[in-house]
């Protein structure tokens, strides 16, 4: 039994290495990383500039607003990471490499697990690049710099969100199968469906429901700590915190609740994807 376990771990290691070789032998991973890095830089630069304007007001505030923009940027990165995740299987279906992948894998679950590990870690790379360019943007831009600890905390919760969205994306890719449809579903959800649901619910004066949808949970995870940090020093800080809440338009859930909820969505979609995968005929 023990040797079986060791063997299956070895087998998983081999499949993870195969997934890495797939990822890094084509352009997709870095073509998606370009907008991620660019947006991280521009958002934090602009966030700093915005604070600079605020600080010039009479009785103005000089606050580490870059934290909130970093949190929001992580949300943007998460969308790209989810698309990257959805293409884990989508691209294999598109190019029909899935046949060879399954023929050389010990089982379909093993292949899925390897994709979760490999693509998930590339998702974390996306988050790290976001944090790096976020630091650069915040440093260049005006406004107070956040403390290293606060920055690390926001980067960590943001990184978790990006990771969970990558896994969720893999689940969506497995559930839908077709790469165009899977990417379209993710993009439509983040750009249209989610804001629309939020708008309708707000108009109907039941805004809290939106907080429990994946986007709401994700924003709580990425921005809650940043908004709290803004409110930490009281006085003008609380004003800014309210401002932060308005800007983010959400974050009624604490970050950990948002994280648990998003993890739940990721588990659900990966589970549904795995079920669909088991039943799928590769013709």
């Amino acid at each position, binding site marked *: 039994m023990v040797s079986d376990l060791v*063997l299956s771990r*070895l*087998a998983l290691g*081999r*499949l993870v*290495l*195969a997934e890495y*070789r*797939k990822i890094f*032998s*084509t*352009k997709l991973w870095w073509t998606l990383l370009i907008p991620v890095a660019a947006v991280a830089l521009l958002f934090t630069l602009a966030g700093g500039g915005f604070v600079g304007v605020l600080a010039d007001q009479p009785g103005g505030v000089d606050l580490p607003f870059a934290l909130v923009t970093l949190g929001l940027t992580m949300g943007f990165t998460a969308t790209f990471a989810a698309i990257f995740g959805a293409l884990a299987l989508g*691209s294999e279906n598109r*190019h*029909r*490499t899935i*046949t*060879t*992948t*399954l*023929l*050389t*894998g*010990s*089982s*379909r679950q093993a292949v899925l697990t390897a994709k979760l590990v490999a693509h998930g870690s590339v998702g974390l790379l996306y988050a790290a690049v976001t944090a790096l360019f976020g630091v650069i943007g915040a440093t260049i831009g005006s406004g107070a710099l956040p403390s290293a600890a606060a920055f690390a905390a926001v980067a960590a919760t943001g990184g978790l969100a990006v990771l969970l969205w990558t896994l969720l994306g893999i689940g969506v890719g497995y559930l839908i199968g077709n790469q165009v449809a899977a990417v379209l579903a993710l993009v439509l959800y983040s750009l249209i469906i989610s804001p629309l649901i939020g708008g309708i619910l707000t108009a109907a004066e039941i805004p809290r429901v939106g907080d429990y949808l994946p986007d709401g949970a994700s924003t709580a995870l990425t921005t809650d700590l940043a908004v709290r940090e803004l409110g930490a020093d009281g006085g003008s800080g609380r004003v800014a915190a309210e401002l932060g809440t308005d800007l983010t338009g959400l974050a009624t859930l604490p970050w950990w609740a948002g994280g648990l909820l998003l993890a739940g969505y990721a588990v659900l979609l990966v589970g549904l994807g795995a079920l669909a995968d088991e*039943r799928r*005929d*590769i*013709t």
Partner: protein
Amino acid sequence: MHDGSGRIVVDGLSKSFGPVSAVSDLSFTVEPGAVTGFLGPNGSGKTTTLRMILGLVRPDSGTATVNGRPYGRLGQPARVVGAVLEAQGFHPARRARAHLGVYAAAIGVPAARAAAVLELVGLGPAADRPVGGYSLGMRQRLALATALLGDPQVLVLDEPANGMDPEGIAWLRTFLQGFARSGRTVLVSSHLLAEIEQTVDSVVIVSRGAAVHRGSLEELRRGSSSRVLVAPSDGRALVSALRARGVTDVEQRMDGRLAIGGHDRQQIAHLALDAGVALYDLAEERVELEQIFLQLTSGQYGSERQW
């Protein structure tokens, strides 16, 4: 893990896609040490059967095993079975060497093995070109190289000659026979009998998802009635002598010879001698396997099925 026999056993396999029955109650065994042809017209269920053997398509009923185990329970399947399937793809931007690197990692063989199989199939010079620029024949060679990565005991090939040039087909034939001669198993499908006639030791012929013949091509040939071709000095005299003996299966051929059924060459020679007719030519008619194959599989297109 598995019995190491190299035997493929298909037992009572059935599969329908919606209302269309692709394979129905199909059974056959593929033995090691020989090249087995898997013959049938397009749409007769060959590809579906091969994909069920490889665990890619789930059968509605029945089982398919390699080395006594279903594909999904072989543990390290690519070290047991190598497969070249139709519609098996490549990422167009990936170079052949990188493609093989991916699957070498999955199987757990060193990169040197990838280089070795590339040389084996003659793709060494093209190893660092993106596969998108490959011809169909080169893709088939790369698919074969991928199948050979794990040094498998069993090879399963679906229409491997598609897109290959005659030189490639001849090379493949020699390769498969050598592979089988080393005691390993080869199952190769085709819809053209002529294409694999010289390669295979035995055949499984399917029509409409069911087996219509299992065994050697020789058995297939023997099973059909053969005729004797003669060029008599006096055709009329021979025909009336034959009639007198009750032999009526006689046909006048375009080339002037008579085709006589139901008797072997010696009997016909004696009959001619008794009738005082000289025979300038006496031969067994070589029955075209293709004809037998067509007879066995006819009806496929006469049915209500769409394919």
